[in-house]
């Protein structure tokens, strides 16, 4: 089915083990631990996979905007497949924000714009963040997580763009 266990009782799961080293299957097999809340979802992409995806998409985006039958096309905004939708927002400065989401998820456009704001606040305004480098800013991660949670809660019937 392609889904993996992402979290048990709120604690993140990495492969077969939880963050504090417990074996997931063992944990679930022991009735003493019930009731238990399990979060399923698509497998998180590894950093390598993200880099590959980003570089491939970057080239596709450039080719797409040149090939477009519409004059002055702004590039690929959305890529739709059976299992996921890829949304892309390119800023006037050339930065692309890419979101991979469930096909039924709504409100991604406003999420992309919110992410732009979060980036300009917590990444760009951090004097120790160098442009074009991976973003390792705590505040950025926190606020991004919050924005994602809000968007997820909105679900398929969320606010439109």
């Amino acid at each position, binding site marked *: 089915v392609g889904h993996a266990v992402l979290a048990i009782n709120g604690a993140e799961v990495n492969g077969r083990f939880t963050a504090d080293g417990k074996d997931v299957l063992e944990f679930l097999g022991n009735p003493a631990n019930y009731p238990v809340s399990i979060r399923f979802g698509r497998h998180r992409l590894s950093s390598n996979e993200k880099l590959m995806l980003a570089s491939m998409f*970057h080239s596709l985006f*450039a080719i797409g*905007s040149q090939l477009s039958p519409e004059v002055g096309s702004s590039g690929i905004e959305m890529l739709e497949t059976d299992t996921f939708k890829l949304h892309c927002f390119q*800023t*006037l*400065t*050339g*930065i692309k924000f890419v979101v991979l989401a469930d096909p039924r998820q709504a409100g991604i456009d406003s999420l992309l*714009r919110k992410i*732009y*704001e979060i*980036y*300009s*606040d917590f990444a*760009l*305004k951090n004097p120790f963040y160098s*442009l074009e480098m991976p973003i390792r800013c705590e505040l950025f991660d926190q606020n991004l997580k919050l924005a994602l949670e809000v968007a997820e809660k909105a679900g398929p019937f969320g606010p439109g763009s």
Partner: protein
Amino acid sequence: SRELLVLTYGALVAQLCKDYEKDEDVNICLDRMGYGIGVRLIDDFLARSAVKKCRSYSETADMIAQVAFKMYLGVTPSVSCSSAAGNEFSLILDKNPLVDFVEELPAERASLCYCNLLCGVIRGALEMVHLAAEVTFLQDRLKGDAVTEIGITFLRKAEDRKHKRN
């Protein structure tokens, strides 16, 4: 809260004057700092103002004066085009909050561009949206001119941008 910005800016310039003997060095330093701010500020500006792409240099100059200056300094300079080619513009500030507490430049600092940071900011911001420009102070009230005037000269033709797009 603008006071703190103005005072901080003043302290910055004063410190630079202590660090560098020549006015030109201070000016260059301010411009460089401004550039570093501009390349980051542009995304904040675009994210918050949600403006559409400008189609001409004139629109860009208007955008800087009417939206950006308003947003960050609370003033709206007036814009005028100063070349037939349409790539040179002047922003005339009749009120400049950064110099609120400055009367005039000291005699030994006669060629200091006190607000040179602003030129760097504009230059850095424009560069991030793929517009190369030269930005300098054409007139400065602190130097005895009637108004404070910032000149923006766009260097590359807008059409070239299409080929530079990523």
